[in-house]
């Protein structure tokens, strides 16, 4: 299967400190790839590079086989790359409806966007008039996902979806992520806590100190290795 998103030999730095030392990663259409690893491994930087918001020192970013290295984030977003950042990226003082209304810049009507959002996340419909910042963490994450889906993404980049959420809520959110992938979207998920995402991931890559140490199907071996080497606890 051809990769929609591919990183080849990516090296990148923060200030002058190199944080990625030749990362190779690919995600095909309909595939969920989990990028795991301990804090400071370079997971978010990898995601930011895929979204075009962090410069690369060397290596290539390929989208649909086309070299897009150095392309600015707005062009990648226009092409269909959507990143949902850590911290959800919703407007806390705006209502759910207004948060969704913001996405009409994509050319879709408010009705279409609300239809997409409320069909997938019916809980949001009941909170339409509520300021997003007053909702629970899980509902805010639903809203962030709904806003992302409004862009009709081909490549979805998720950063720490589970942060601050109860395990049950995380499991439900990842069910939705799996459903999104089944519709042909390439999904790259960055997670520090592996348990939830490994249930839905087709492949997992373990990033340690800026290098992909292991990549493959999330079998028991990988789980055990993760548990022992990177997470320091039962995954």
């Amino acid at each position, binding site marked *: 299967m051809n990769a929609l998103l591919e990183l080849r030999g990516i090296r990148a730095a923060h200030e002058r400190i190199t944080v990625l030392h030749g990362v190779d990663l690919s995600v095909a259409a*309909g595939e969920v790839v989990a990028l795991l690893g301990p804090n400071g491994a370079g997971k978010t930087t990898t995601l930011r590079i895929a979204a075009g918001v962090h410069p690369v020192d060397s290596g290539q970013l390929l989208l649909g086989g086309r070299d897009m290295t150095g392309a600015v984030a707005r062009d990648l977003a226009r092409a269909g790359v959507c990143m949902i950042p850590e911290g959800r990226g919703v407007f806390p003082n705006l209502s759910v409806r*207004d948060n969704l209304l913001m996405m009409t810049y994509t050319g879709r009507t*408010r009705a279409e966007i609300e239809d997409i959002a409320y069909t997938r996340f019916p809980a949001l419909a009941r909170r339409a008039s509520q300021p997003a910042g007053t909702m629970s963490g899980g509902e805010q994450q639903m809203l962030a996902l709904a806003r992302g889906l409004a862009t009709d993404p081909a490549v979805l980049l998720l950063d720490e979806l589970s942060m601050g959420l109860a395990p049950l809520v995380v499991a439900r959110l990842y069910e939705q992520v799996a459903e999104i992938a089944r519709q042909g979207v390439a999904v790259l998920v960055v997670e520090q806590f592996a348990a939830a995402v490994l249930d839905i991931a087709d492949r997992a890559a373990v990033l340690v100190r800026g290098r992909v140490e292991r990549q493959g199907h999330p079998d028991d071996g990988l789980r055990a290795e993760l548990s022992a080497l990177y997470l320091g606890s039962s995954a």
Partner: protein
Amino acid sequence: MTSTEPRADRFVRELTELKIPDPATARSQLWLRLGGVLMALGVILGASGYLVTHNTLDPLVQNDGLALGIAGVAAGVVGSALFLRYSLTGFLRFWMARQSYDVSLLAERLREPERLRDPE
């Protein structure tokens, strides 16, 4: 856009059609810095021209000073234009997004009474 076309195929097709400027030729930061440098250079040249013309009675040297001053003004104008052009782009993009949001909001408010009058 064809609804039957898989999203991945459409993505690849749209990418090939997308007119994305070659990142290697993206020089906006360079132009921005050049604008700043030219503005500073304009001030320096202008001040130099002033000093040169006021510190001599030789008309030939004064002419040189005048030329220096004019070059300074030209550099300042070009530099300001470049700086404004490349620094305002980002600001205007957000301003346009905000305008777009406000207009959409206004349109929704205008449609609201109709919706209340005729609920489906």
